[in-house]
C-alpha cells in the first residue's frame, strides 16, 4: 500500500503547491488585518455621525433660549467632536473639491440639511495619516450659528497598513516557498553538478548519484546514472575490441617474425626483427594499459629487493649500466607481475633516456621507497605532471627514436595506485631524473 502522498512528486506540482500555500497565507493575513481596521469607523461613518450630531444640536439649540445656548453646545460636545454656538458667522465657506464632497456627504446623510446655509472648511493634514480637520457651520433659524469641529480620521493608515502587511506576508510566504523549492531543487542539482565534475577524473570509476528529490530531478539522476552505464559500456566494448585486436595481431606478428628468419640479407633481417620487436612491445604496453583495471592476479607478500635485483641483473647481463643498492630484503604487498612490470618500465626509461639506472631501496618511516635515478637530461619541470598522461611523449628529439606508445609511466602509476602506493618524479639537483616508486611498508 502506498501511503497517501500530499506532497506532489513533480517539480511543477511542488512549486504550484507552495505558491498556492503562499497565496492562501497572504489572504488569511490580509483578512485579519482588514478585520482589525474595521474597529475604527470608516470615513463615511464618521461623516454621517458628525452630520447627525449637527442636526441634533441644531434642533436642540433652536428651542433653547440664547443665553444658555453656548453652555448647551458645550455640553453636547463629545470626544473628538466639539460644538459651538455663535451669533456671528464663524467661518467663510470654502468651496474647494474637498468641501463640496463633504457637503454632499452631509446632505446625503441628513437630507434636512439640503437648502440650508452650510459653511464648510476642510483642511487635510499634510502629514500622515492624512486626517481631515473639518469645521461645519450651520445657520439656525434665528440667524445665529452652530459650529461643529471634528477630525475625520482617514482610514488610509489602515489601508496602508493592511496593504503593507499583506505585501509583507506575501513576501514572507513567497520567500518561504522559494526556500522550500530551492532546498528541494538545489541539493540534487548540486550533487549532479559535483558528480558531473568528477566523471572521467578518477580511475574510470563510475560516479553514482542518489536518485532523490522531486520527481523530475529523480528522472534526471536516473538518466545521468544510465548515461554513465552506457558510457562505461561503450568504453568497455571499445577496450575489449582494442584488446582483442592487440591479441590477434600477435599471430601475424609471429608469422612476420618467423618469416624474417628466412631473409638472407643479415642487415635487412635484423631491421625486420627490430621492427617486429618494437610492434610487440607496443602491443604489450597497450594491453598492460587496457588490462590494468582488471588484473586477476591477487596481491601477495613479495620481496621487493629480490625483484629489483632480478631486473637489475638482467640489465647488467645485457651489458647495460644498471646498479642496485640499499636494503636487501623488503617485503611489500603487491601483485608480483604488475610490480615487476612497473620496475621494468622505470629501469628501461632510465636506461633509454638517462643512459644508466641506479636503483636504491630505502625505508622512510611507513613507506618503502625504490628510487630509480639516471644521469640523463631529466624532464622539464613544467612537464613532470604531463609525462604521466597516457600517450604523452616529450616532444623533443629524444622522443622520435623511442619505441613505444608513451604509456610506460602511465602504466607504472596505474599499477602503484592499485597497490596503494604512488609515483614521484623529480629532477635531481646534480642533473638527471629521480623516479620514486613508493609503497606502504608492511
Amino acid at each position, binding site marked *: 500500500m502506498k501511503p497517501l502522498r500530499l506532497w506532489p512528486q513533480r517539480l511543477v506540482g511542488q512549486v504550484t503547491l507552495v505558491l498556492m500555500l503562499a497565496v492562501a497565507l497572504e489572504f488569511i493575513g490580509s483578512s485579519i488585518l482588514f478585520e482589525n481596521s474595521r474597529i475604527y469607523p470608516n470615513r463615511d461613518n464618521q461623516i454621517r455621525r458628525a452630520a447627525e450630531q449637527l442636526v441634533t444640536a441644531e434642533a436642540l439649540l433652536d428651542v433653547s433660549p440664547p443665553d444658555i445656548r453656548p453652555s448647551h453646545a458645550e455640553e453636547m460636545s463629545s470626544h473628538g467632536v466639539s460644538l459651538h454656538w455663535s451669533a456671528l458667522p464663524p467661518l467663510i465657506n470654502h468651496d474647494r473639491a474637498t468641501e463640496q464632497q463633504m457637503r454632499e456627504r452631509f446632505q446625503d446623510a441628513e437630507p434636512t440639511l439640503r437648502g440650508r446655509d452650510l459653511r464648510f472648511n476642510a483642511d487635510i493634514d499634510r502629514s500622515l495619516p492624512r486626517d481631515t480637520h473639518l469645521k461645519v457651520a450651520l445657520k439656525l433659524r434665528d440667524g445665529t450659528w452652530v459650529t461643529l469641529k471634528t477630525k475625520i480620521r482617514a482610514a488610509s493608515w489602515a489601508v496602508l497598513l493592511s496593504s503593507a502587511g499583506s505585501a509583507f506576508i506575501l513576501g514572507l510566504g513567497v520567500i518561504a516557498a522559494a526556500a522550500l523549492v530551492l532546498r528541494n531543487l538545489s541539493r540534487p542539482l548540486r550533487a549532479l553538478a559535483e558528480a558531473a565534475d568528477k566523471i572521467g577524473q578518477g580511475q574510470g570509476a563510475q560516479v553514482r548519484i542518489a536518485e532523490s528529490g522531486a520527481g523530475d530531478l529523480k528522472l534526471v539522476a536516473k538518466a545521468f546514472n544510465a548515461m554513465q552505464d552506457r558510457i562505461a559500456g561503450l568504453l568497455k566494448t571499445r577496450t575489449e575490441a582494442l584488446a582483442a585486436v592487440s591479441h590477434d595481431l600477435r599471430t601475424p606478428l609471429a608469422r612476420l617474425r618467423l618469416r624474417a628468419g628466412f631473409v638472407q640479407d643479415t642487415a635487412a633481417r635484423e631491421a625486420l626483427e627490430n621492427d617486429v620487436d618494437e610492434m610487440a612491445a607496443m602491443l604489450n604496453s597497450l594491453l598492460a594499459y587496457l588490462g590494468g583495471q582488471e588484473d586477476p592476479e591477487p596481491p601477495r607478500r613479495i*620481496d621487493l629487493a629480490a625483484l629489483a635485483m632480478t631486473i637489475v641483473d638482467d640489465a647488467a647481463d645485457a651489458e647495460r649500466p644498471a646498479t642496485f643498492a640499499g636494503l636487501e630484503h623488503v617485503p611489500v604487498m603487491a601483485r608480483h607481475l604488475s610490480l615487476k612490470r612497473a620496475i621494468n618500465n622505470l629501469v628501461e626509461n632510465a636506461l633509454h633516456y638517462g643512459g644508466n639506472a641506479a636503483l636504491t631501496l630505502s625505508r622512510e618511516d611507513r613507506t618503502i621507497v625504490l628510487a630509480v635515478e639516471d644521469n640523463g637530461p631529466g624532464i622539464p619541470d613544467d612537464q613532470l605532471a604531463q609525462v604521466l598522461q597516457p600517450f604523452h611523449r616529450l616532444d623533443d628529439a629524444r622522443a622520435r627514436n623511442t619505441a613505444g606508445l608513451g604509456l610506460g609511466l602511465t602504466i607504472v602509476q596505474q599499477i602503484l595506485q592499485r597497490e596503494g602506493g604512488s609515483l614521484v618524479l623529480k629532477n635531481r639537483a646534480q642533473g638527471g631524473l629521480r623516479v620514486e616508486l613508493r609503497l606502504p611498508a608492511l
Partner: protein
Amino acid sequence: MATAPVAPVVLIVEDDPALRTLLMRLLREEGFQPLSAAHGAEMARMLETNAVDLILLDIMLPGSNGFDLCRSIRRESDVPIVMLSARDDETDRLIGLELGADDYIGKPFSKKELIARIRAILRRTQNGVQTAQPRGHQQMTFAGWTLDPGRRELLSPDGAFVDLSGAEFDLLLAFLSSPQRVIGRERLLEMSRARFSDASDRSIDVLVSRLRRKLAVTGQAEALLRTVRGVGYIFTAAVERR
C-alpha cells in the same frame, strides 16, 4: 641425409595455417621432422599413429583450448610440451607449467628463440636430467624456505615471494636435488645449460653470488651455499620434500 641421426619428431598444433606452414618449414630446415595438426582431434590422430618427441601446442585453438589438450596429453604420456601463446601473460605461463607443460613461449617469438628452447628441452629429456627434477607439486623446504618447482616459486621464511631469474631458479633447484654434497662448477654449468642454451656466458660464480644475496634474509646465506675452493659449491641445509 640418410646418415644423419634420427631427426626428432615435432608435432605442431596450431590453428593458423600460415603460421603452421612457417613452423613446418622452419623446423624442417633446422633438422627436425615436423608434423602438424590444426586442432585437438587431429592432434589425437597424429599421436596415435606417430612417435612424437615434442609437441608445440598453441593455447588458443578452436574447440578445446591448449590447456585442456595439455592436461589430456599428460594423462597418457610424458612427451615434452612447449606451449605457444598470443597472450604474454604470466598467469597463462603458470597454468601451462602447472599442467605439465615443459616450457612456454609468447608470440611473437623469433626463430632462434624457438629452436633454442626446443633443443634445450630435447637435450634435457634425452639426457635424463629431468629425473633429478621431480615433476609436479612436490614442495621442498630448507631452513624455513619453501621452493615449489611446479609453480617455480621461492618463498622466504617470512612467507614473502622471492623473485628469481630462470637461471637462478634452476641453479637453486640443482643444489636442492643434491643437498649436502659438493657439486662441481662443470656439473652446475652443464645443468643450467640444459635448460638455458644462452647460459654459457653466464658465470656460475656470478649466479651463485646473486642467489646468495637473495637468500640473505636471515644472515645464514653464506652457510647455505658454501664455496668449496677449487671444486665448486655445497648446499649445506637439509632439504625436506612434501
